């Protein structure tokens, strides 16, 4: 049982507030992804959970035990560092076996576990090498293997696949997910790759400037972003925004079109995903600026009443720059945000 609870955790570095009042519960055996732009505090949060950094205020609980005062070794965690931290004076084998040796496991057990995890990470042929003789991606996989070999209650991974090529990354993603699903380990996985986040996570926590903006399942984060930041961060291309003026009675005027929306008296922002629009007879009038064929789809960057607007349409459409399009948003996919609080309005 290793449920992780983060209660009111804040962290200051001097006068810089890196984390603001973080509250997050990660269920036992859950795979939680921390997703956010560079510098938003992902590593800092991970280090606080690991015990490498002390929170300025707040509490960290692991498996029903308060661990703030415990050294990293007593927290039942293993960590994959962003910069790998592979020991240069040890071979790959001894690196992976380092934690097991510290636990004084018998030699054959160490050997078995090291070989198994090395195979998993496709580095079994490198076991005799030193870190100076490895590529960045290989070193990164040694770091992951070293943490996996510990079979910890909690594994904290800081962008563990960032240095691999696309193909290997996809493969490792599946392997990692498989191993962790088969184990009883609770995982926190930091990334700024949304595809990785979407494909691996049980839940995604989207972080922004030291705060967790939304923690929900991947599809929920994608479909129902809790805040404008999430809507603009998740998805490639992200959501489109247009100003919406109230037209009374749950009606809204968006770029000259009247649409159904929430009943609110003040101006909102209308949002729609690029793929949630169809060419139709009535809808938003857009002028195509750039047309990018992406194989299955056509990515069209256009202008709607002076705002940039993207649409993903079927690739058998023939659209040229300068064409006028009429795009109808799917009614059940329209979202609304309060421009003052930036939060979603239902």
């Amino acid at each position, binding site marked *: 049982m290793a449920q992780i609870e983060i209660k009111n955790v804040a962290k200051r570095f001097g006068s810089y507030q890196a984390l603001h009042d973080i509250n997050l519960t990660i269920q036992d055996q859950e795979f939680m992804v921390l997703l956010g732009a560079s510098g938003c505090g992902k590593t800092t949060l991970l280090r606080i959970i*690991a*015990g*490498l950094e002390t929170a300025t205020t707040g509490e960290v609980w692991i498996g029903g035990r308060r661990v703030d005062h415990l*050294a*990293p*070794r007593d927290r039942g*965690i*293993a*960590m994959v*560092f962003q*910069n790998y*931290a592979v*020991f*240069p*004076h040890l071979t790959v084998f001894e690196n992976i076996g*380092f*934690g097991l040796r*510290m*636990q004084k496991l018998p030699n054959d057990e160490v050997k078995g576990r090291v070989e198994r995890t090395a195979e998993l990470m496709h580095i079994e042929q490198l076991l005799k*090498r*030193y*870190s*100076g*003789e490895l590529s960045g991606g290989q070193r990164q996989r040694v770091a992951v293997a*070293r943490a996996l070999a*510990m079979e910890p209650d909690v594994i904290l991974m800081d962008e563990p696949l960032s240095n691999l090529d696309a193909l290997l990354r996809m493969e490792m993603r599946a392997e990692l997910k498989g191993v962790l699903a088969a184990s009883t380990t609770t995982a926190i996985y930091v990334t700024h790759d949304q595809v990785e986040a979407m494909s691996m996570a049980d839940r995604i926590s989207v972080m922004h400037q030291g705060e967790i903006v939304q923690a929900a399942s991947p599809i929920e984060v994608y479909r129902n972003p809790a805040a404008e930041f999430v809507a603009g961060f998740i998805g490639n291309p992200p959501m489109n925004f247009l100003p919406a003026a109230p037209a009374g009675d749950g009606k809204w005027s968006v770029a000259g079109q009247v649409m159904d929306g929430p009943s609110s008296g003040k101006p909102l922002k209308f949002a729609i995903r690029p793929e949630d629009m169809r060419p139709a007879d009535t809808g938003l009038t857009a002028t195509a600026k750039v047309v990018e064929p992406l194989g299955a789809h056509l990515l069209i960057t256009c202008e709607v009443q002076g705002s940039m607007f993207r649409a993903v349409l079927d690739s058998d459409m023939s659209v040229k720059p300068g064409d006028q399009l009429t795009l109808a948003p799917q009614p059940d996919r329209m979202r609304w945000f309060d421009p003052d609080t930036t939060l979603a309005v239902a």
Partner: protein
Amino acid sequence: MTAVTTDVAGADTRRAGRWVYVSAVGLLCAWVLVPLYFLLINTLSSPETVNSFPKPFIPEFDLGSLTFFANFAGMLTALKNSILVAGLTMIMSIVIGAPAGYALSRFDFRGKELFRLLILLTRAFPLPLLALPLAVMFIQTGLDDTVFGLALVHTTLAIPFAVLITFALFSGIPLELEEAAWTLGCTRLTAFSKVVLPLILPGITASAIFAFVISWNEVFAAAVLTIENRTLTAFLLQNLDTSPLHLKFAGGFILVMPALIFIFAVRKYLFAMWGIASR
């Protein structure tokens, strides 16, 4: 056709480059080895051969000069003093210098930059300037003419290097390595001994040897601060004009050897620790 000509020209250039390379290496080796070889020949020749001319190119393996050296009154004591002083200097400069280097690299404290500057500044005062007041002070405290007193002076000479070398060493070891060890079940102490120590050992050895050699070669302070307990350098200097040529050669040889042997012995340690040698 042109390709062939360029190829020939390329091969020519490469051959010329190789020739330059080989002769440069040869020249450098000769630069270092020839004087050492003459030193060796003259040391291993009988006193008569040393003082005659022309000299042989092959050593006679006559221990006459060395025996003379060993029997020269006070010489062995001087040798012993040199070893003692250099050994003490080595230990003290590492014991004091390495923690200072660690502190400089791992902790932030006020006046850190000033501290680093001050360490370097200790080298700004020429020893002759300090020697007289030092001698007076040593006489007052009873440290004059002792091995320990001289080792103290040599330690102050060696410490800046020890601090700066170990500072660079510790800085070269990312804190993350220690942190990784902590998450893998190490305490601060075991992380230090299992990760940091093996990584800095070659460097510590190198700076220890450096301290030893600094002390071993130092002559000025040794000559001023000791009378009875002279080190080898001071003793040889004292007897420079009165001693015969073969004694000088033997003395020179004995002075050069430890530095050479030491550095030769640890050369693997200095390079091979993390697989650099296997490249």
